């Protein structure tokens, strides 16, 4: 019986039969359909996934004409992690001139709005210089990262400690207080960057601290769009559904806890977001085939429900890619082709 070489969600190689590969796709799409209460993939789409994942080639790719554009979560960080001693501005040029980047993104090492605030003058200078010597759009990325506003790092009482002592009301009030601080910081930092000429602000890893984190970002975007109507905002999420750390927060009368990508994008659009970046997490104990079927199911419905461009998060541990810092080329190229050709999204 013919076997196909594929990978698990942790990146390890496995060989499975053709019939098992088909079953992985079917079970993956069913899992997404049940969790998100959304349509499963059609038989044609499952067959297309099978064609992509049964290819013996190491890299695969989309048909000519199906290419999409890319936005990144900090093109500087990827270079800095290699300890190559080059400046952040040079990192942007490297991506623009050597890696075919459609856009580049400047970001601080800490990559959080709160951390950027005290060094915003320095960040503005780097950005202004970068905008003079690059041609592609330059985004500035940072995370709402509400966790930094809780003690001991921040000024607000820690909700987790309050919850542990049964103080649920006080915990919720702490979340709400943190939201106010975070909104002020995000609006301040983004405003400064707009004045320096930035092409877009990327609110990355939104929702990492749950529903208060998502609400803070939505409110900040709303204020920014009122202040600067032509400002482009990209919002990238941190997980496939919004964690209910508070549990009762709403935006435009919609409860935030538990929202999936197709519901998140509608609120992002109402707030004024121009590009939405949905996330679907990788399950390491399942195959990449199972994971990608799940990803494509969530993203396809998200793209259908959206009126704004959708750029899927396709990095390590999300988008059907394995959880490893050295992601294999076969796994990346297969997920890339599958997501682009089946969901018809606007970018990665």
């Amino acid at each position, binding site marked *: 019986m013919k076997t196909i070489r594929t990978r698990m969600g942790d990146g390890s190689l496995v060989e499975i039969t053709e019939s098992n590969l088909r079953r992985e796709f079917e079970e993956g799409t069913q899992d997404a359909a049940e969790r998100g209460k959304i349509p499963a993939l059609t038989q044609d789409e499952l067959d297309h996934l099978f064609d992509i994942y049964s290819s013996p080639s190491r890299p695969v790719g989309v048909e000519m004409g199906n290419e999409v554009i890319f936005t990144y979560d900090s093109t500087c960080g990827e270079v800095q992690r290699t300890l190559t001693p080059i400046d952040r501005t040079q990192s942007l040029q490297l991506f623009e001139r050597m890696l075919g980047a459609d*856009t580049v993104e400047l970001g601080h090492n800490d990559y959080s709005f709160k951390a950027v605030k005290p060094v915003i003058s320095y960040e503005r200078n780097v950005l202004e210089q970068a905008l003079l010597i690059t041609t592609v759009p330059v985004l500035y990325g940072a995370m709402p990262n509400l966790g930094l506003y809780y003690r001991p790092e921040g000024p607000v009482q820690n909700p987790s400690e309050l919850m542990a002592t049964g103080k649920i009301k006080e915990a919720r009030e702490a979340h709400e207080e943190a939201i106010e601080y975070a909104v002020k910081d995000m609006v301040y930092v983004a405003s400064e960057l707009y004045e320096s000429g930035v092409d877009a602000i990327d609110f990355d890893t939104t929702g990492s601290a749950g529903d208060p984190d998502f609400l803070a970002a939505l409110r900040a975007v709303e204020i920014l769009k009122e202040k600067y109507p032509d400002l482009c905002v990209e919002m990238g999420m941190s997980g496939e559904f919004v964690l209910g750390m508070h549990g009762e927060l709403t935006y435009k009368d919609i409860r935030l806890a538990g929202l999936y990508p197709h519901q998140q994008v509608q609120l992002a659009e109402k707030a004024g977001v121009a590009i939405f970046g949905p996330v679907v997490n990788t399950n390491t104990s399942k195959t990449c085939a199972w994971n990608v079927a799940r990803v494509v199911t969530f993203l396809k419905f998200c793209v259908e429900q959206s009126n704004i461009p959708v750029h899927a998060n396709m*990095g390590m541990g999300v988008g059907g890619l394995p959880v490893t810092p*050295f992601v294999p080329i076969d796994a990346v190229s297969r997920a890339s082709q599958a997501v682009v050709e089946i969901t018809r999204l606007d970018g990665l």
Partner: protein
Amino acid sequence: MGVGDILGMAATHAIASGMGGMRTAGDLVARMQMSRGMRIKEAKEYVASKLNVSLIELSDPLVMSERREDLKLGLINPPPDSVKGIEAKFHIAELLGIEINSLRRFKEKIGA
């Protein structure tokens, strides 16, 4: 995109499904998504019509490098006396009929 080593992530995605940035017309399509909220199909059609190329040619580095040089839109390996950096953005804004924030600021700074 997302986190990962540069060859495994950014380079692999670029080869598998990317337009190619300034090698082709990727940055121009990106600008239409960012400034007008166009979806990928509409943005590609808009840019192709402005460049007078087909949708396939939009991602072809041979065709696009010639068009970019003719229209002064910037090249990844620019020859002497060609536009570079922000200079190319002036021609891009004019071609696409869009405002670019850094150009607005640049004009203010030089008093233009």
